[in-house]
């Protein structure tokens, strides 16, 4: 089977800093891949480079046989990538409805049906549909951000630290949501919360100093304390 998303020795800079120095990974249709690593390893930059927000300076990024390497972000997204950024990326000056409308790349019946389905999934958003996004709680903002990535028929969803800054009870809700749509979507998840990463992920890649240093199944990582200590700096209880 061909990978849906393939990064081959990708490198990128942020200003003068060489952040990614050779990231390679493969994501197959229907699986959830978790990118792990210590703070500053380059996990978020990997997602931003895939999207094109940080231009790749070397290597290749291929999605479903389409070369994304030199594509501007507005075109990358139109190839079928949904992105849920770390800071939610929602527009405070727009209502929940407008945030969803603006995310819809088409306004055909299929997309409208998908939006309705997403609203059934996120009942909080349905209740706050006409409210300005600025009035939403952290959890609701995260839900809106995820909902936006789901309204289009994306091939793959990139999610950056969905549990960051959320209360444990909300994190559980976010985890349940990811598990619900994991059945139908291919996911790349950057996550510091190891519990959530284990619950959602099928396979993992560990990035250290801008390079992929290890990959395997989540089960292998969960069972190997030495690996956890060496690459992530902790051991699960």
């Amino acid at each position, binding site marked *: 089977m061909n990978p849906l998303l393939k990064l081959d020795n990708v490198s990128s800079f942020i200003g003068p800093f060489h952040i990614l120095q050779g990231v390679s990974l493969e994501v197959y249709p229907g699986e959830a891949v978790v990118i792990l690593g210590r703070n500053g390893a380059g996990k978020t930059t990997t997602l931003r480079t895939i999207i094109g927000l940080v231009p790749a300076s070397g290597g290749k990024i291929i999605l479903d046989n389409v070369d994304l390497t030199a594509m501007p972000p507005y075109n990358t*997204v139109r190839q079928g990538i949904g*992105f849920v*950024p770390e800071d939610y*990326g929602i*527009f405070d*000056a727009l209502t929940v409805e407008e945030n969803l*409308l*603006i995310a819809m790349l088409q306004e055909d019946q299929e997309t409208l049906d998908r939006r309705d389905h997403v609203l059934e999934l996120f009942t909080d958003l349905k209740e706050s549909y006409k409210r300005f996004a600025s009035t939403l709680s952290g959890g609701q903002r995260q839900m809106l951000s995820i909902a936006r990535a789901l309204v289009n028929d994306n091939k793959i969803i990139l999610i950056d630290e969905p549990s960051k800054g959320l209360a444990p009870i909300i994190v559980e809700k976010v985890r349940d949501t990811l598990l619900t749509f994991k059945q139908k979507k291919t996911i790349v998840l950057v996550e510091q919360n190891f519990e959530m990463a284990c619950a959602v992920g099928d396979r993992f890649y560990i990035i250290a100093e801008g390079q992929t240093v290890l990959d395997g199944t989540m089960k292998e990582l969960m069972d190997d304390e030495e690996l956890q200590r060496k690459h992530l700096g902790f051991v699960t209880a």
Partner: protein
Amino acid sequence: MPMLTNILRKKPALGPGMWLFLGLFAVLILIIPHITGLTTTTLLSRIYILAIFGMSYDILRGYTGIINLGHALFFGGGTYIAGIMFSRMGATLDILLLAVLVSMVFAAIVAYIMGQFAFRGSGFTGVIACAMITLAFGEIGRHSAETLREYTQGADGLTFRVPLMFQDRVMMYYYALLFLIAMTLILRQFVNSPTGRVLQAIRDNDQRAKFLGYDTKKYKLIALVIAGMASAAAGIMFALLTRFANTELLTVQSTLNALLYTIVGGTGTLYGAIFGTAFVQLAQNYLLELRGIHEIFSRWLLFFGAIYVLVVLYMPKGLVGTYLQLEEKWRKRKIAA
């Protein structure tokens, strides 16, 4: 005053009270030329026209987050195109229609070229670069108008005749009012359209709009072209009202006036420009009338500078924005009680 709030909101809900209020207001606006003198009638005509200049600036500043320091190029361009065509080809309705067509094409082409240069960067440096490049375009326009004295009469100004139907001041008042209503409806439709929504998203965060699949440069170009054309249309109406054009219309001061209208009225509200223009024009007029009392009032720009600083410091949302904010607060307090 929930009725006023409803009018100022983007999607007003018109109840019976609202219709009554609008009806009375409409009657007042319609009879004003018959109960006041020509000076007031002309001043109000001027406010209606300049309000569109202000609204066109609000499309850029308030809805897209663009600082355009050369926006007067479109307004002055419209005035000059109409003036030159009237003086050279005759003051007829056919020539007016031709002037409208030429002005629209001029505004669209200049806005497109200006945007191609101005929207290259992103982030804070992009905003500064945009301001500087548009300033340069504006200055090129002003300098060109001063150089082409044969057509523009330079700083001395170009006086011209206008078609017969625009020569009566009272009728001109109604044309200006009609222009204000028509342009407000068009621009309101634009800012509430899906494109307008994308512009607001770009204003909030350019990068976020990009990763949702929007070519932000293209949308900024659309905003600049629409704002430029609206501004040029206002320029033509200004030509019909004043029958005079000089290079003052093309200066950065003229652009800053538009900025002042939107800031005083409230950026990102569209209607704010009407209130801002009315406030600034009426204040300017009133201050000039006070010259007889003390010479300092002839230096009205000093007072405007002070108003500008006070508004930015204490009322950053402008008249309309502050009103809507206060009304929201009162509403919440009422619900809580």
